[in-house]
């Protein structure tokens, strides 16, 4: 082959390679990364009554270029205890829900991974199937179960255990049930993936060497499934912090969660700068968990 043709070919291949890389890179930069810069920008602007309802950062008038970065929105978040309470409420609720998911999900995933081979796929589909139906409708199902005239209260009053209905709807308890119910499959899936890969020879070796069942679990199974625990917990915790639908439908008006507060600032108060500042602070709080999740995921991708 002539050298010039060869370099022509490699050049064309290089160009093709770049085009292939550019397609997802440009799309995601434009529609995923760039929007965050805009959120930052608008969180630093002032709210005005206009369309769109925020003021400009850069103004040019009377031969002076004015760059106004307003920190007012962030200071406003700190000054009003409503917002601090909402952040704290979200993190607390998400943390409790994640722990409950882990406590229910781990034994489930363990049993699935130990089930006979032909059962494993069926069990996996059974666990995942609810998450493929409608999220909204699954949360809605709990409204009919937990309300004052709902199934649980009707049943308990019917058998005479209680005389007046227990208040379960519009409480933090209802929000936690809703999150656990909606996100449990996302906890079980990565746990199962890790536990199924676990080499049973390791467990046999431990038991042959006289290790007690519980010690084997603590020293062999648990450390080897750590990747699944991290992935599952992050898949529940991070979206749960920003959850809107569940606190809105099950938590009632008094539940302070940040996703709901952001929604109300945006849609009801039409205060876009404060909503943006709320989003930026939420992102900052979630940055560590997101980076943790990403590290774990990219390790998975390399394997």
């Amino acid at each position: 082959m002539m050298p010039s043709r060869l370099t022509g070919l490699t050049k064309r291949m290089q160009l093709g390679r770049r085009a292939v890389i550019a397609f997802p890179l440009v799309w995601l930069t434009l529609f995923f990364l760039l929007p965050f810069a805009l959120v930052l920008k608008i969180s630093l602007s002032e709210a005005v009554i206009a369309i769109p309802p925020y003021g400009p950062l850069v103004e040019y008038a009377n031969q002076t270029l004015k760059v106004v970065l307003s920190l007012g929105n962030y200071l406003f978040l700190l000054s009003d205890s409503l917002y601090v309470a909402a952040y704290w409420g979200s993190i607390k609720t998400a943390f409790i829900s994640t722990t409950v998911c882990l406590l229910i999900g781990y034994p489930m995933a363990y049993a699935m991974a130990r089930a006979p081979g032909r059962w494993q796929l069926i069990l996996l589909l059974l666990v995942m199937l609810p998450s493929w139906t409608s999220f909204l409708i699954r949360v809605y199902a709990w409204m009919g179960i937990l309300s004052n005239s709902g199934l649980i209260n009707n049943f308990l009053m019917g058998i005479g255990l209680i005389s007046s209905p227990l208040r379960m709807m519009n409480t933090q308890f209802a929000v936690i049930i809703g999150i656990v119910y909606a996100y449990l499959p996302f906890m079980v899936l990565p746990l199962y993936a890790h536990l199924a890969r676990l080499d049973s020879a390791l467990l046999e070796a431990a038991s042959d060497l006289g290790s007690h069942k519980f010690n084997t679990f603590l020293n062999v199974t648990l450390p080897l499934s750590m990747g699944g625990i991290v992935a599952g917990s992050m898949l529940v915790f991070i979206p749960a912090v920003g959850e809107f639908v569940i606190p809105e439908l099950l938590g009632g008006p008094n539940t302070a969660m940040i996703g709901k507060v952001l929604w109300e600032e945006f849609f009801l108060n039409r205060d876009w700068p404060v909503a943006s500042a709320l989003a930026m602070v939420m992102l900052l709080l979630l940055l560590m968990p997101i980076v943790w999740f990403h590290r774990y995921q990219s390790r998975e991708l390399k394997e």
Partner: protein
Amino acid sequence: MMLLSRRPSFTTVMLILGLLFLYLPMVVLVVYSFNASRLVTVWAGFSTQWYGELFRDRQILAAVWTSLKIAFFSASMAVCLGTVAAFVMTRYGHFRGKTVLSSMVTAPLVMPEVITGLSLLLLFVQMAQLIGWPADRGVATIWIAHTTFCSAYVAVVVAARLREIDRSIEEAAMDLGSPPVKTFFLVTLPVISPALAAGWLLAFTLSLDDLVIASFVSGPGANTLPMVVFSSVRMGVSPKINALATLIILAVSLVTFLAWYLMRRGEAKRRAQLKQVDSI
């Protein structure tokens, strides 16, 4: 001792309880969709009237159609975008921007929806100011938003498959002089097609199900099914929504069963072929 070993283990009991926890609320939805009473919590006899009312509700029917259209086009575009992203991540060595790309592929999996929705809306507003597009938000903006977050899920599913398959087939094709593009379409794509189908279905259900992001980026013209359902359930429980839930659960169960059946048949076929090879 015999009795002890037959007793189901703690984890098996938890698995059964966990599955009951996942399915009982859905069973309740289905049962009460056939309730004659408007009150969802009082049983007043069997009736299918709510299904009739559901099919007469023009607003819901229009929203179903809008949602199906958006989900179809979002899933199709997300499969293209996600597959290319997965291919680039697994098959190309190091390149500039790889870290950024891999972060942008995994971050949407966990990003709270309110943040994604708000940020995309601000982008569309800014774009409308700068280049005049999109003048009206609606189906097109929801399509872009859904494609973006669904492609992350597709990329994860497809990347897992790309890492699993035997790379020597692709290398053999290239060694025999097949150009990369041809190798991809004739060798790689057929092998990963089950993952593409799974990714498409996942993207389709995710798009169909999204309320928060669609609410942010939609305009007055386009109402998706979750938006209509949400404004209805906010007012309280309604038997019409139970009927809709039953139909959704039925459709998802049928598709899942079909997928399971096809997977099982594929497995059986492979085993039979292996047996044939052994007997020769």
